[in-house]
């Protein structure tokens, strides 16, 4: 074992196998014949081998782990591990499952925001509406979906279509939910 470690160390340091002379020196052998005999033993053991031209190649000099019989375990499927870091469309689209609703869009007042008639929008009832959010609010007994504009205490609902006018609510504005996604299936 000691000899193998020395050869391995040499290989690691020089990126090549030692010559007979070098091995004589390393092993403190008195003759090249001793080196020859040692290599015969190592070859028989499978620790080194020779290429077609007779040069030495390391074989099992490294990571000498005792094999106590084989186990049919194999590598764990890399697929399983990689899939842990993926998410479903549901997970990607929905943050708070209990507070998420959907709505089928009618009209074209948000067309410039890319929201078209018939689209599905996902809404979250638990989010606090912020300036710039697209929100769904109650106006005169109907839903309306617009950009929310907040300036100080002033609130307005801004459409994304020049043909519509902004809505400035006279009374308290009842915002039901914040839009979190738009989905269109073709």
């Amino acid at each position, binding site marked *: 074992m000691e000899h193998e470690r020395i050869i391995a160390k040499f290989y690691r340091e020089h990126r090549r196998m030692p010559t007979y002379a070098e091995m004589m020196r390393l092993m403190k052998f008195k003759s090249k014949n001793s080196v020859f005999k040692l290599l015969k033993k190592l070859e028989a053991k499978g620790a080194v081998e020779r290429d077609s031209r007779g040069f030495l190649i390391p074989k099992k000099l490294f990571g000498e782990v005792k094999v106590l019989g084989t186990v049919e375990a194999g590598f764990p499927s890399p697929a399983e591990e990689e899939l842990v870091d993926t998410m479903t469309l549901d997970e990607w689209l929905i943050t708070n499952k*209990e507070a*998420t*609703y959907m709505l089928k869009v*009618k009209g074209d007042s948000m067309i410039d925001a890319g929201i078209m008639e018939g689209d599905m929008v996902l809404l979250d*009832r*638990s989010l606090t509406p912020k300036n710039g959010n697209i929100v769904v609010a109650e106006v005169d*007994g*109907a839903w309306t979906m617009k950009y929310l504009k907040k300036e100080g205490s002033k609130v307005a609902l801004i459409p994304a279509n020049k043909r519509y006018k902004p809505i400035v609510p006279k009374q308290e504005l009842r915002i039901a939910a914040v839009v979190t996604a738009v989905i269109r299936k073709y």
Partner: protein
Amino acid sequence: MDAVLTHRSFPRAILHIDADAFFASCEQSRDPKLRGCPVITGSERGIVSSMSYEAKARGVTRAMRLSEVRKLCPDVVMLPSDYETYSILSKRFFAIVRRYTPDVEEYSIDECFADLTGLRRAFHMSYEGIAEKIKKELDTELGFTFSLGLAPTKVLAKIASKWNKPSGLTVIPGSKAHLFLAKMPTEKVWGIGPNTSAYLTKLGVHTALDFAVKSEEWVRAHMTKPHIEIWSELRGTQIYELTTEEKHTYASVQKTKTFTPASSDPKFVFAQLSKNIENACIKLRRHNLAATSAMFFLKTQEFSYKGWELSFSHPTAFPHEIVGAIEESFNEIFDSRKLYRATGVVMMKLVEDNVSQLDLFGERLRILDSKKLYAAVDAINEKFGKHKVYLGSSFAAHHTKQHGGPRGQTPTRRSTLFKGETGRKRIGLPMFMGDMS
């Protein structure tokens, strides 16, 4: 005199949560046009199954006939039940409560109990504070209100949630229970029926407090076990534990269909019932369930019900077995002088369908044959559309329109579909309804 029942405020902390006018609230919260209006659900059944507080204020009660409702409240909005949406929202209700404690008992579609005992430290909050947070999340995320009651026992928690409805949060610590019970007649207590209440009155017990202050010897001498337990619960000693398993299976599957005009033709009415049985069986098979017993009913033009129950020799989800078994009893019950307007079936005592039980008379082989048969039927109907293949006994029901006149009987969600959704399978998210501007 203060008759304090116990000095311990919260040996346990039980929360009872009750959705306010649940079905009607589900409807109002998704359509702003319904807000502030008297709304009832159940129009497909011909009777009120839930009414909004606006309708309640006008005198509408549960199980009232629609014609009567219209008289009381001409501007009422009557909606067909959308059980799919109600069930989704019910599940969300329980899921939100489970954010705080795993110990939740789903008592019914719109009520639950939650055990908060020991959670004060975990949330750095009083029990009342936790209850307030739960209420706030329920109200905002579901879009309508809930009433909560916090007390050391289930019986007291139920009293507390009812105390201030709608949208109340009432706390009854054990040490204050007597103040609430003093104002409460015994029959208002959960588990005390009119008979027991009348009996208690004879014994000079009028209020829940009168009952609660009685000595144990007195209660043991005059009452039976269930009422002794209620007596303990009223005194703040918990007897009733929570049943906290999540309900995964259907307790029953029900299929009812009204038809107009009403009919006195036994063949037609039987075909209607047969179709309902087929539909119920399709649902059972889809969920890999089988029924052990079933209830059938016929509803007359006068809204009187005639029902009968049947137990099966083995769990089944095969309509031909059931239809064959009820023909005789149907003929006994059917009265050709009457006009019928609806039939229905409730499949009960459902079990997982895995034909595991062996029997003596080769039933099992017959069942396996039927299994093959219905696998084929289901496959055909899956491929070519519902009801392409059906029992001969349902023929008359399939070849007549269910309703002679117009009637809003299917919930709007069923007809508001996204691309890829079908009448039978929709995305499991509740949908905002109503007009958009």
